[in-house]
């Protein structure tokens, strides 16, 4: 078997269904799972293809994190032909994320690349030769999708913070490297205590990020969605219908002082982050408020705009204004109140908006929501939505990588205290820098050389 790593991923659509499954595959699957699994059965010796009841426990404090069912499938009689452990947790995103984060924390298990289980199944001879092309397509499409998600995140606030942190680390690295590669140059001597201070500073920045991540403020993802429309077209009831039926995540974190209040929902497995929901609730006059700064920001930030129109009325001048303002944006027009006679001039609408971005629905009768789901899915996922390993997993990745980077910096600090030479301490610092780079999809080593030569005047 050529893969030595043990990998894990959530293998069910996130937010849907009563249970979620984390699949772990690789040589360490059973022994790693055992570390966190408290149960009557000893899974190390358990037979293949058996199911065990127990709890996932955080070894750090002995607390039970989640009640689970654990299935063991020993290689080669498994999907990947490797040892596989599947952990079934309660549905929803919170439980499964917590378990996955725990599994990844130590670094023995890493998060699976897009399509990696299938890739392994193929490489290990579990999948027929004729399906090679299908396997390739799966890897390609999953990677491209993951990439586009990552690109979106790369512009976010978290990413900016990580970039700043990385920049500070690379300046430190360049300084260490110049000391090593140009020992006779008149650059400031790099000392252990200098490295220690810088690493401790970086550590506390990461601590801050992790703390916010723990509180759920920054690392939640989903398609950022804004609902707009004239008064009384049914925005509030749409919102309520969406939230009540589909609420996937606990929201309204106490103590947050955000301007824009958000709701997280999972619409048939599609994660949506609904913006300014409070605004919609407190006043129905969104058309007026569209000029208000915070709503404008919300609209700018939105990946998706749901424009609600009343099908039972003629199109209003304000509607036309809204449509005009929102052209070139990803908009879905919702024709609400189709339970009543349709009065709106659909021909006029078709002249300014494409037919496949128009959804007829009736919030009252709860009809048309499945159509909305299809249209969103078509807009963002090329029509097919597979198990939700996109944004949620990337959150877990972020937390895991931040944790690893922090550990590397702690190692560096400890090494300086133990009197380890700077070129060896550098290994840990560099690792932290690379782990942060992995987070934002930027791990190129050439930039270290660029940094060295732009920061220092060298040469003969």
């Amino acid at each position, binding site marked *: 078997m050529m893969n*030595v790593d043990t990998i894990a991923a959530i293998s069910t659509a996130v937010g849907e269904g009563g249970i979620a499954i984390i699949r772990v595959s690789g040589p360490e699957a059973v022994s790693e799972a055992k570390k966190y699994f408290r149960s009557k059965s000893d899974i190390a010796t358990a037979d293949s293809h058996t199911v065990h009841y127990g709890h996932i426990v955080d070894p750090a404090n002995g607390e039970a994190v989640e009640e689970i069912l654990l299935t063991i499938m020993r290689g080669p009689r498994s999907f990947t032909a490797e040892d596989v452990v599947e952990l079934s947790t309660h549905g929803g995103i919170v439980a499964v994320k917590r378990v996955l984060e725990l599994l990844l924390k130590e670094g023995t298990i890493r998060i699976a690349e897009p399509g990696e289980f299938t890739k392994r199944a*193929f*490489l290990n001879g579990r999948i027929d030769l004729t399906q090679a092309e299908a396997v*390739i*397509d799966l*890897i390609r499409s999953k990677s491209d999708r993951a990439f586009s998600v990552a690109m979106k995140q790369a512009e976010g606030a978290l990413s900016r913070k990580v970039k700043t942190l990385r920049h500070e680390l690379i300046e430190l690295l360049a300084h260490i*490297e110049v000391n*090593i590669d140009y020992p006779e140059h008149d650059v400031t001597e790099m000392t252990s205590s200098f490295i220690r201070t810088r690493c401790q500073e970086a550590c506390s920045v990461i601590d801050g990020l992790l703390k916010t991540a723990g509180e759920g403020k920054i690392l939640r993802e989903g398609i950022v969605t804004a609902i707009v429309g004239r008064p009384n077209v049914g925005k509030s009831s749409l919102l309520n219908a969406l939230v009540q039926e589909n609420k996937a995540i606990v929201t309204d974190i106490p103590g947050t002082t955000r301007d824009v209040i958000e709701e997280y929902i999972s619409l048939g497995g599609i994660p949506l982050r609904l913006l300014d929901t409070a605004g919609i609730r407190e006043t129905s006059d969104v058309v007026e408020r569209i000029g208000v700064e915070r709503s404008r920001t919300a609209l700018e930030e939105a990946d998706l705009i749901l424009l609600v129109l009343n099908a039972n009325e003629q199109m209003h001048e304000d509607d036309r204004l809204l449509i005009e303002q929102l052209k070139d944006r990803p908009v879905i027009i919702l024709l609400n109140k189709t339970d009543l006679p349709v009065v709106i001039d659909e021909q006029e609408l078709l002249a300014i908006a494409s037919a496949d971005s128009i959804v007829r629905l009736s919030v009252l009768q709860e009809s048309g929501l499945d159509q909305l789901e299809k249209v969103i899915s078509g807009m963002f996922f090329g029509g097919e939505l597979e198990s939700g390993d996109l944004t949620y997993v990337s959150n877990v990745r972020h937390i895991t990588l931040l944790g690893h980077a922090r550990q590397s910096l702690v190692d560096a600090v400890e090494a300086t205290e133990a009197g380890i030479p700077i070129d060896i301490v550098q*290994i840990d610092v560099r690792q932290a820098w690379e782990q942060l780079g992995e987070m934002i999809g930027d791990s190129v080593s050439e930039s270290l050389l660029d940094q060295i030569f732009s920061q220092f005047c060298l040469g*003969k």
Partner: protein
Amino acid sequence: MKYEAGQFDVIVIGAGHAGVEAALAAARMGCETLLLTINLDMVAFMPCNPSIGGPAKGHVVREIDALGGEMGRNIDKTFIQMRMLNTGKGPAVHALRAQADKFMYQHFMKKTIEETERLTLRQGMVEELIVQDGICVGVETKTGAIYRGRTVVLTTGTYLRGRVIMGELMYESGPNNQQPSIKLSASLKELGLQLVRFKTGTPPRVHGDTIDFSKTEIQPGDENPKFFSYETEYSDNEQLPCWLTYTSEETHRIINDNLHRAPMFSGAIEGTGPRYCPSIEDKIVRFADKPKHQIFLEPEGKHTSEYYVQGLSTSMPEDVQLSILRSIPGLEKVEMMRTGYAIEYDAVVPTQLWPSLETKVIPNLFTAGQINGTSGYEEAAGQGVIAGINAARKAQGREAVIIDRSQGYIGVMIDDLVTKGTSEPYRLLTSRAEYRLLLRHDNADLRLTPLGFEIGLISEERYAKFNRKKELVEGEIERLKTVKVKPDEAALGLLAELGSAPIQNTVDALSLLRRPEVTYASLERIIIPSPDVLSEDMKEQVEIQIKYAGYIEKQLLQVERLAKMEKKRMPDDIDYNAVHGIATEAKQKLSSIRPLSIGQASRIAGVTPADISILLVYLEHYNRVVAARG
């Protein structure tokens, strides 16, 4: 008049640091070898620093020596100063640096070549490669001599369409006013090699008798010099100091006032220069807030008064150079003997090479040194050894030898060149190596001497000695595990003296040696000595291997993981454009670089992890199909 001048196994063009190593390696491996140079007086000439080694570069010299190359032995015979650098840092970055007697270095190397069996040294300028059916079969010189060879190694340095620039003055020339090689460049282009224009430079040289050394700071060599070659045990070379001074405000003023005459800024220079080796005018413009720059005065040899002015590389006009020199403390009355200059030259885009250093377009043609886009004697020599070995092996019908990134800096350099290419003259830095702790200065023999022996460049005698050293080191590490240290007066006294925490119980000696502050030498004072006599070299090895075991193992684990990728060979006939699913950019890069393994493919810029996954699936598919066909 053309004439047939001889038949050889390997022909090496150019006798600089790459060429001499290539020729010596090939001849020592049993090949009839011809070494051609434009000027016989320029064998192993140092056109720039009279110095060898330093971080990464010194490591390469040791690797060359561990493989059976010549540079280490030659500098050990001819050094006029030896210093171990970075001694305050970890063992991986300790680095030996020597000042060479530039003339002795040449003479000794030339003599070694002349005395080597099967090696013919001849003066001649090659103007054309002879290529039959797409394969390189020989060379033709300016005088009409046709030499036939099974393989050819091209090491043209900065001679290829060389052009010297000094202020407003520009002329076709090789380094140090040597004849440039003009026609060969066209021949290479015609054969389909893509060339690129690079630039490098050198500072002026001055007369030592006109330097006021009292205004400078002395930089002596080490009292107990170490050596580059594992074969050198002793030297009584007399050492000469270097001298340190700085540029002055006046220097900066002169340069700023004359920038309009600097070809760097007037656009006269088209070649790309190295960032790590900027000219003084470049440094002053780019780092305007730095008030002064270091200048080292380095003797060029025992039998000359010439000094090399390190830090003052420049292509300013001659009159400005003299003013600059005289603005530097200690050089107020200096006489300039040679003017500094910039030189532009043609190089081959190195992604056109296999990791064996054979060109992809012209089988049996190898290139090494500056022609591959590198800079530095050591980088050149390191490639020279590999090109020589592989040209010889190809001539003998054997498989190429490739040093990988975990085995040596030579491997790092060649992999970087052929996989990523370079946009400026490439210099080795320790930070280019991902396994710096494995690629140490002290263990080059452990890494490469078994390979050198297998290739046939290391003698039985030397190999036996090497194995003995290895056994003794391993034996001593095992022994230290069993040697107990009690918390008695001697032990506690020693630990207190070293500022190390006292021990409560009996511990083994090995765990004590793990402590950063405890050295082998100090430990020796309180433990039963080894039954074998260990050299200083061996003791150092024991100490390093024990002290850094944790970090070393971590890196070894990484190497092991990646090794699986390195072992996955790409089929020779793979058509990347036909591999479904790979991104277009990756297809183009893969098709042009044609990596030998999945590992190499993964290091190509523009090839993503998803592309690699797809390649793995494709490869599996391919292998199963091939297996099914039988």
